[in-house]
């Protein structure tokens, strides 16, 4: 197995596997301005989203942390923040936060710009092109895996995912951790039923508590609302597919995290400060989950899918793997690593992990996985709404 990859050196010891310019709206009102700038700047990507206004408390901080993290992601060379001017998600504030990564950051507000959006697009393109020209001078260099953060995702799962693609991803994740890198498992609602196993793998009492408490809180608060999370898993479709109990389903999900010890638990979009395997609190919407992984600094994501899913991420390339022979056939345009050969060609989980590792290294080195090639740039931010709205 290859143990190095080619990347772009960033300040503060970070390494990017892509060299993009982020055009980041602080608020949804200026999404179109960001899109128009991104269209005319090489390697630029507009990180449009529907938030940034009328938010407060933990919800505001959560979104601010996420937007900041997206700008700080090492795959981004530099960021242009576009604001409106009256929103509470201030572009200036975001710029200050992202500058902590010591990368180029510029910000503009439409309301502070003579000529408004049209003039700002022209200025943004000018500044963006200059940034892109600087970025293009960078040469790729060789780095070891201690510079890598891998995100682990699954979506459109079926009963085959847990016995094919997921355990193969677990082997790849363990390898990244062994080589000194970081791997992050999100989707905490899908750990229910395996808490005791995750806690057994936790390094230290704090990590143990950080696994136990949010799950307890989730179960208690949903119980109060009359929902028993544990009673709705596995779903009728899961049962039809052969999954019998909640712990069996969750075991399939957490198989993506391999056998490595768990260093700790991250908040949504929080950057891990130490090496190893981390868990992330995030409820399990694929696009929100992958946005949180990218905001935490993941340069690449491996996503397993049973029924097939086309989704991608604007910052971290997403490698898809699938164990379902039908999906691999019908949706081959969305699948990078065919794990269904475990079923059709008698391959082992280890064989698939080896193929997946090669694909991972190629993608790190610049190969575009299907979602990136097809232009699936999906971004959504999980909202932390702890207060009830009158309905």
């Amino acid at each position: 197995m290859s143990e190095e990859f080619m990347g772009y050196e960033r300040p503060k010891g970070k390494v990017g596997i892509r060299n993009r310019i982020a055009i980041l709206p602080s608020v949804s009102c200026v999404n179109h301005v960001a899109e128009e700038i991104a269209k005319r700047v090489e390697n630029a990507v507009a990180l449009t989203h529907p938030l940034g206004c009328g938010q407060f408390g933990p919800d505001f901080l959560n979104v601010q942390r996420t937007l900041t993290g997206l700008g700080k992601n090492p795959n981004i060379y530099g960021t242009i923040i576009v604001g409106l001017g009256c929103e509470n998600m201030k572009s200036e504030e975001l710029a200050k936060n992202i500058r902590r990564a010591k990368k180029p950051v510029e910000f503009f507000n439409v309301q502070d710009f003579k000529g408004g959006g049209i003039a700002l697009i022209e200025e943004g393109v000018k500044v963006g092109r200059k940034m892109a020209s600087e970025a293009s001078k960078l040469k790729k260099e060789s780095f070891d895996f201690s510079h890598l953060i891998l995100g682990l995702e699954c979506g459109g799962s079926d009963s085959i995912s847990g016995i094919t693609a997921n355990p193969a991803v677990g082997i790849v994740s363990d390898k990244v951790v062994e080589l000194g890198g970081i791997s992050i498992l999100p989707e905490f609602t899908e750990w229910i039923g395996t808490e005791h196993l995750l806690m057994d793998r936790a390094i230290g009492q704090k990590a143990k508590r950080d696994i136990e408490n949010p799950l307890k809180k989730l179960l208690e608060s949903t119980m109060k609302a009359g929902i028993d999370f544990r009673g709705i898993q596995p779903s009728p479709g899961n049962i039809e597919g052969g999954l019998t109990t909640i712990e069996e389903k969750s075991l399939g999900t957490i198989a993506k995290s391999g056998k490595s010890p768990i260093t700790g638990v991250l908040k949504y979009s929080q950057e891990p400060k130490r090496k190893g395997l981390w868990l992330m609190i995030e409820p399990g919407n694929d696009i929100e989950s992958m946005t949180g992984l990218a905001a935490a600094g993941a340069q690449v994501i491996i996503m397993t899918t049973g029924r097939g899913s086309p989704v991608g991420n604007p910052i971290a390339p997403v490698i898809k793997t699938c164990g379902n022979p039908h999906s691999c056939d019908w949706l081959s345009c969305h699948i990078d690593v065919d794990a269904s050969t475990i079923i059709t060609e008698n391959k082992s989980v280890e064989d698939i992990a080896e193929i997946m590792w090669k694909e991972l290294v190629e993608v790190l080195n610049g190969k575009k996985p299907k979602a990136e090639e097809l232009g699936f740039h999906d971004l959504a931010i999980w909202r932390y709404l702890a207060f009830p709205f009158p309905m």
Partner: protein
Amino acid sequence: MKKSFIVMNSEDNCATSLKDIPKDEEIEIKEGKIIIINHNIPFGHKFALNPIKTGELVKKYSQIIGIATEDIKVGDWIHTHNIKSHYLERVANE
């Protein structure tokens, strides 16, 4: 060659089918050990590799996935009719 089942860990007492296995089919679960399948096992469903008595644990990935609610014979289909969640049982008693 198409594989008809997968065992996730050598400690497991169940296997997962990778095709629709008809009742009465003979399956070689390891070299020289052949079992007879007692029920139709749909793709993705489980069958027993060992006898599992009522109250005994069912293991997949070397982990507990449930507890038998009736005696299960080698080759029996394992699903919601004969096992239940061990986790839910445990949290209910906490």
